[in-house]
């Protein structure tokens, strides 16, 4: 077999594998949802039929049951979202960067004790890019900064610098930071530093952000800040070729 032939074979195999992977993820996350939803419903009915006078242990257990199934469902949704990163919301359109940042901030929950410090070094506030994808990344990083913060008063610093070929974006906080031992694990789907009983989250935000950034040709780094908080920095190329 010559080089060209084997190259073609590899390419075909790759395409087939990708298709199989996507089908698998779709089935896992889509079809499995139906019996999962059924479990939540049935648990609710039983709780309902038992009434509030029932044994508290029984009611607690049903609560745990439902919580774990909801977690299962969130994980399915996260899997689905990760697999579809390059399939949905892939429109290129003009984005006003400060407005995008403000929109993300507006969408955040629990921002009551959060102070945002935003700095822009931009030549042009507008750019044409995959707006929904950039929004997703910004939102995920901001959401993480707040969700995993351990202090009453939280500070989140956003800095965006425009270079010739890309934008450098950094989001940092004065939270607990990420222990050195686990820094290489944080981009794995479902990984959370603390147990999911402590902070209720699926742990997919970073995975999805990382995948998006890689897709557009950038890189995402983590570094601790001076105050031992977290700094996430990535570059977002101006020209995106997928």
């Amino acid at each position, binding site marked *: 077999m010559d080089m060209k032939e084997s190259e073609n074979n590899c390419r075909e195999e790759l395409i087939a594998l990708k298709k199989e992977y996507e089908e698998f993820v779709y089935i896992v996350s889509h079809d499995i*949802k*139906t019996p999962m*939803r*059924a479990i*939540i*419903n*049935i648990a*609710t*009915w039983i709780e*309902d039929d038992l009434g509030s006078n029932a044994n508290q242990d029984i009611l607690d257990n049903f609560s745990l049951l439902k919580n774990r199934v909801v977690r299962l*469902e969130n994980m399915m949704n996260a899997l689905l979202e990760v697999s579809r990163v390059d399939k949905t919301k892939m429109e290129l359109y003009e984005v006003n960067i400060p407005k995008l940042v403000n929109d993300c901030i507006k969408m955040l929950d629990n921002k009551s004790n959060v102070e945002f410090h935003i700095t822009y070094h931009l030549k042009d506030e507008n750019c044409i890019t995959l707006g929904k994808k950039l929004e997703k990344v910004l939102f995920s990083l901001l959401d993480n900064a707040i969700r995993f913060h351990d202090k009453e008063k939280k500070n989140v610093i956003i800095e965006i610098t425009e270079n010739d070929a890309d934008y450098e974006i950094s989001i940092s906080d004065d939270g607990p930071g990420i222990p050195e031992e686990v820094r290489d694990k944080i981009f794995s789907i479902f990984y959370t530093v603390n147990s999911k009983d402590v902070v209720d989250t699926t742990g997919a935000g970073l995975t999805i952000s990382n995948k998006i950034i890689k897709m557009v040709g950038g890189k995402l780094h983590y570094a601790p800040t001076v105050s031992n908080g977290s700094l996430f920095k990535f570059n977002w190329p101006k020209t995106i070729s997928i």
Partner: protein
Amino acid sequence: MTHRLVNILLVEDDEIDVMNVKRAFSKNNIKNPLFVAGNGVEALEMLKSVIIPLPRIIILDINMPKMNGIEFLKVLREDEKLKNISVFVMTTSNEDSDKIDAYNLNVAGYILKPLSFEKFISSVATLKNFWQLCEM
């Protein structure tokens, strides 16, 4: 729905979803006679002979075996006796194509089955209020 309770037909193949509807109806004190068909074929049979008088409301799932919701709806709309029954789609399908097909066949509403039972009870409450406003 002022003086008598119209018949309601539920076309749904998933037994959990059927139970959900029955429970939500009960929680909302909806006392209308509820008939259940597991798919479009069964529904048409029930409409032709079993349900008397004909239901004024059909709650319709889309993804069902043998004959899905859209196919059933097409047949319904072509039948002189059945075509003016109000149809409310209740489905997990968020596909735009299904919404377009359903509205093109003039459903009165397209509702996504909510994830939690509590939300479902509340949606049914809203439906009940709406039905009570309607002359059927």
